[in-house]
């Protein structure tokens, strides 16, 4: 496989991570806690889409190898994830009177609840959308790129969502209000910002993107009650790498982590190829840069990045 091939794989995977990490980062900065239920929010999106797709099926024609019905399901997945998150905020988080670490613990509880409900309803076995998988796009094969139209659809949809978010944040006051609120919630209220509304919008956007990420994850791989939870650690890494609370940082962090994750075989080829001296060091490095350690490598790279930029890629420099 060529470098381009690895990069293409990385891009597809990154798209999903990015969708997850933006939402996590938004909620992190506004609601001021690390939401451990975020992964399971993705799962909710995925399963809602599964049910919807089961109902509407291959409605009408198809784009990028995906029936229209899938896009309907995607929208429903986004909506349900958002609604569930807003409901949780209203019902659970808002009435709470605790600090951020308390909220974090609460969100662990919420995550358990989401997951168990899904498992009770759908069982624990994996499943997939009823969409015929595709073969790789012929035209790209000569470059060593092996992606399908579905992969293209994932990247394109993610790009649309991310650009949409960018526009929303840039050309409406919402983004600025969010930052103001993250900075100083009391002062935000004093200035006349209706903070509850901003919080709700944050949840809608964050959870909606997570829902979309979940649907794509289901399309990319498969659905299981633990799918989102299994991705959570990686998403956290992405968010912290990007600089906590920065939406654009989360995008960059998600992109990087997704890439690194998929590029490990390439790295291991590289270390195989380059001479390292002394021998024992070569053995250690080659031992470590192997696919068994793919996740560890992602974390190590993240730590190295943070050593250089202690506040994350997009974080502001420390005083």
């Amino acid at each position, binding site marked *: 496989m060529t470098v381009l*091939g690895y990069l293409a*794989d990385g891009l597809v995977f990154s798209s999903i991570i990015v969708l997850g990490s933006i939402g996590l980062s938004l909620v992190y900065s506004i609601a001021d806690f690390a939401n451990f239920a975020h992964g399971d929010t993705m799962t909710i999106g995925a399963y809602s889409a599964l049910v919807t797709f089961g109902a509407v099926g291959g409605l009408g024609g198809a784009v990028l190898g995906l029936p229209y019905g899938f896009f309907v399901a995607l929208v429903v997945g986004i909506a349900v994830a958002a609604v569930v998150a807003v409901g949780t905020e209203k019902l659970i988080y808002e009435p709470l009177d605790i600090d951020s670490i308390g909220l974090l613990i609460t969100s662990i509880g919420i995550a358990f609840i989401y997951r168990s409900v899904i498992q009770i309803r759908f069982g624990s076995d994996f499943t997939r959308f009823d969409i015929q998988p*595709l073969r*790789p796009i012929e035209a790209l094969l000569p470059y060593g790129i*092996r992606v399908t139209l579905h992969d293209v659809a994932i990247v394109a949809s993610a790009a649309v969502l991310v650009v949409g978010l960018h526009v929303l944040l840039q050309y409406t006051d919402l983004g600025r209000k969010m930052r103001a609120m993250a900075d100083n919630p009391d002062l935000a209220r004093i200035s006349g910002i209706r903070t509850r509304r901003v919080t709700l919008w944050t949840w809608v956007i964050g959870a909606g993107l997570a829902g979309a990420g979940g649907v794509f994850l289901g399309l990319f791989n*498969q659905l299981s009650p633990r*799918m989102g939870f299994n991705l959570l650690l990686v998403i956290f890494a992405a968010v912290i790498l990007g600089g906590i609370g920065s939406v654009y940082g989360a995008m960059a962090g998600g992109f990087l982590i997704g890439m690194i994750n998929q590029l490990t075989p390439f790295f291991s080829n590289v270390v195989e190829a380059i001479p390292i001296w002394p021998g024992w060091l070569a053995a250690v490095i080659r031992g470590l840069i*192997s696919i068994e350690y793919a996740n560890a490598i992602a974390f190590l790279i993240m730590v190295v990045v943070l050593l250089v930029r202690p506040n994350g890629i997009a974080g502001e420099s420390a005083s």
Partner: protein
Amino acid sequence: LSTTDDGGDGGDGSDGSDGSDGSDGDDGSDGGDGGDSSGPYEIGMVDSQTGSLSAFGERNQRGVNLALSRVNEVGIGGRELDIVVEDSESENQGGIAAAQKLVNQDGVPFLIGAVGSGVSLAIYESVVEGTDVVQLSQNSTGLNLTNFPGLLRMSPSGRSQSLALSNIITDDGYDEVAITYVNNDYGQSLTDAFVNAYDGEVVYNSPHDQEQQSYSGVISEMNSSGAEAWLFITYQAEFATMVNEVFSSGYEAQFYGADSVSGDNVLENTPEGSMDGMKIVTPSAPVEEENYQSFAEDFEAEYGQQPTSWAAYAYDCVINAALAIQAADEFTGAALQDTVRRVSGPDGEAVTSFEAASQILADGGGPDDVDYQGVSGPIDFNEDGDPVGFLQVLEVQDHAYEGIDFIEG
């Protein structure tokens, strides 16, 4: 000395782990039989109801339920069989805690468990060993279990599978193979055994973690290894992901797999033709045999799908346990230790259903007068506690499993 307990509630905590010595010795002091002939016999099961192996737990559960209804239709000497199922969360800690509760709290003399080989061994070493509780693992195929004769299992050791696979691959004319295995005791021990047995060259051999979102790294490395035969020793979910990725990456290879890669859910969730020609070795009773057929029929009627071997193992565990209870003089670990092997051992009349076997016992037959033939194979535990492996070779044809060969372990 004889006491009556089992007063209906689950938590009596009186029987079970007799010490090696002590006042009550090994006579029937705390057995639930005798006086109380109405309450159910209570045995325990540690299953992966949540956690990474929960899908297997679910399959087990179907087999257990089916078996329970079979047993309780007939009854064990007029009493019912009840199974307390505890969740291992697919982890050692959870498994041990579950077993602790079953053995030391519920006082079950017979423990079915667990799914993962690591968890089964952990339970054996920390809870069961040194007591006379019978432990019968439903799904563990790890090779290590062979070294623990006190730990029985219904699924044959992976060694026979590995041997069979190596023979098949060699016979198919491949002298190079690429292997990927799930990074746990099961995957690792089967792979080790395969590598030992295989005469050709293993050009790629790498573990993968469970529940990853993508294995494209692994399969692209398998592809670049140049081997034309790819061997997968992993679980269904992981394997389905890999098949899809192979398909959508456009790679071509001859697939081989160990038992855990097969299942209806794999077929359902992979594209038509993506695995055609794949060969899988799975422990099983000959599918054409009448007892398997009736099991499969019932199973389909109940759950609307083909049974998996995990359901079959769990089914056999329950039946075997029920027969052991019926054949034993009393409901104690010591007594069950004695009968558990014999009711399905090679001596005696071969029968294929609980009803038939139970009839023999009811007619005054001893444990050696029955030879229960399971739906997963003839059972016949050897001195290491492993069953006689009967292996079926499946080939995927038109996106369905077809039995093409049958190997006796």
